[in-house]
């Protein structure tokens, strides 16, 4: 009993630096931030309830950012799931060369975004090589049109697909080979095997990949900021830009309210997905 208590004290000691850091830099100031979100300003600190949230939600810029973030996720998350699944399936067929190809597909993950910014601009800018090659007579300002959404998605997938490829490779490795052999014996073709074995048994992995993709999709800010700056074309002005710009004007009330809204959305999606997955697996087992 005594040793038990003593080891608990030791564990507390081990965890103390981490606990202190979390409390100091995340938990406590999140409380402060919640407080700042429900008072009127940093001088009088009068309680105003949800007024700040209402103000933020009613602002045009915030709505634009919210809409864009939603749209971006709607394009980016599925694309960043389908392509890695496809690549992972291909990689599994590559046999001995799997490691080499896998390395090539993973490499962009470690390339700092800053190293690529000039290249992407020289490709898609008004004076860029894409215009020079295909549209020399009527150059399009790709990053200043609705196309910027597509380009950013492409750049994002180029950089981040490796992460999901790794997750899918691990998921595919979990499907027992016997399933395929069995199906082949019973005369199922390649396509049917893919549809009825691969696609079914990859569902648990896909949930995981989905959640990670939603979380990772917020990293697109880096690329957008480095390629197009703090005020990009309005079609790629995301919630992260909105929060970033509130930092520059240091409006704590808007900043706190907006960050709580973004937090609620993210956690909402994750919790919903976990619930959904649980219900699904209950129904199937």
């Amino acid at each position, binding site marked *: 009993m005594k040793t038990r208590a003593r080891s608990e004290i030791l564990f507390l000691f081990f965890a103390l630096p981490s606990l202190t850091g979390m409390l100091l830099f995340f938990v406590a100031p999140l409380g402060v931030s919640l407080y700042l979100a429900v008072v009127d300003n940093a001088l009088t600190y009068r309680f105003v309830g949800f007024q700040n949230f209402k103000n933020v939600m009613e602002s045009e810029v915030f709505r634009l950012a919210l809409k864009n973030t939603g749209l971006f996720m709607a394009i980016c998350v599925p694309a960043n799931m389908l392509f890695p699944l496809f690549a992972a399936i291909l990689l599994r067929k590559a046999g001995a060369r799997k490691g080499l190809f896998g390395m*090539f597909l993973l490499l962009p993950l470690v390339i700092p975004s800053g190293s*690529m*910014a000039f290249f992407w601009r020289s490709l898609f800018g008004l004076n*860029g090589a894409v215009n020079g090659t295909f549209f020399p007579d009527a150059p399009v300002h790709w990053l200043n049109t609705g196309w910027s959404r597509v380009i950013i998605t492409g750049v994002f997938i180029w950089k981040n697909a490796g992460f999901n490829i790794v997750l899918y490779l691990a998921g595919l490795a979990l499907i027992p080979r016997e399933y395929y052999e069995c199906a082949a014996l019973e005369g199922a073709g*390649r396509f049917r095997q893919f549809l009825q074995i691969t696609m079914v048994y990859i569902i648990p992995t896909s949930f995981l990949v989905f959640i990670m993709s939603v979380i990772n999709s917020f990293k697109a800010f880096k690329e957008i900021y480095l390629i197009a700056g703090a005020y990009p074309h309005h079609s790629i002005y995301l919630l992260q830009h909105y929060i970033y710009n509130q930092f520059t004007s240091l409006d704590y009330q808007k900043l706190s309210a907006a960050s709580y809204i*973004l937090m609620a959305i993210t*956690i909402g999606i994750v919790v919903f997905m976990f619930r959904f997955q649980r219900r699904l697996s209950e129904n199937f087992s």
Partner: protein
Amino acid sequence: MRVNTALSYILLTVLAVLFLLPVCVILTNSLMSGFEISNRFGAFVTPENFYSSVGAAHFAQISLIPDSVTLTQYFDLLFGSAEYIGKFWNSVLLAAPIVAGQIVVSAPAAYAFEMSRFKFKEIIYFIYIVIMLVPLQVSLVPNYIMAQLLTINGTRLAIILPGMASPFGVFLIRQHMKNLPRDYVEAAQIDGAGHLRVLILIVTPLFKPAVAALFMLSFIENWNLVEQPVIFLRDIAMEPLSVYLSQIDGSLIFAASCFYMLPAVLIFLYGQEYMVEGIQLSGIK
């Protein structure tokens, strides 16, 4: 079957080329002379030109192969001006303490979380997970508030301390520990080994892959810092190369980009398997 394998090889090759080409272009263009760079990318010499429509007749001419191979870009980069080296050093001064600190803070905490029998540990751990899941821009708000209170705003500490306390390290190492056999630890305890000895002799060797994975993922993340420096460091002198690279487009840009990606690429080539393991562990189940 054969056709299938051949087809997947062809597709993989296409993908690998697509993924590698941007990096290769940067690599080979870093061997061009400054003159050739301004010839090819003349339209991009200043950012203002990028948004103007006058220079539309001169498009960037991206080429994989330099007219003549020279190391002048690297020579100028390393000896021509102290600027790039200084910014590179700024990146090191941010990334190195964060990565080292995160490992030192996280490893004992993860051990404590896994081994402790404290009633509320899972509730505390849940807070870790929630904070890990929220988008970076959201967690920057509490970080900023605390930096103000501690009057470390504008210094590197404002980025380093929250980085060290980030919950991701604890999560990653604990995920790894969950897969470890408990018997080892219990056997050692029965033999009379104290917690510290168990930690040093038994757990640390088992930790190694997890720490290596954390090192890889944390380094890649923190070598690519963009949001934190632009929000916390108002002083240009402290700006890391990750941010600086996106603002310049002189004749050294490609050498500077290569120079900056070099540590990340080397670490990747050396510890790719640890990175893969880290990614697999970072999936929340």
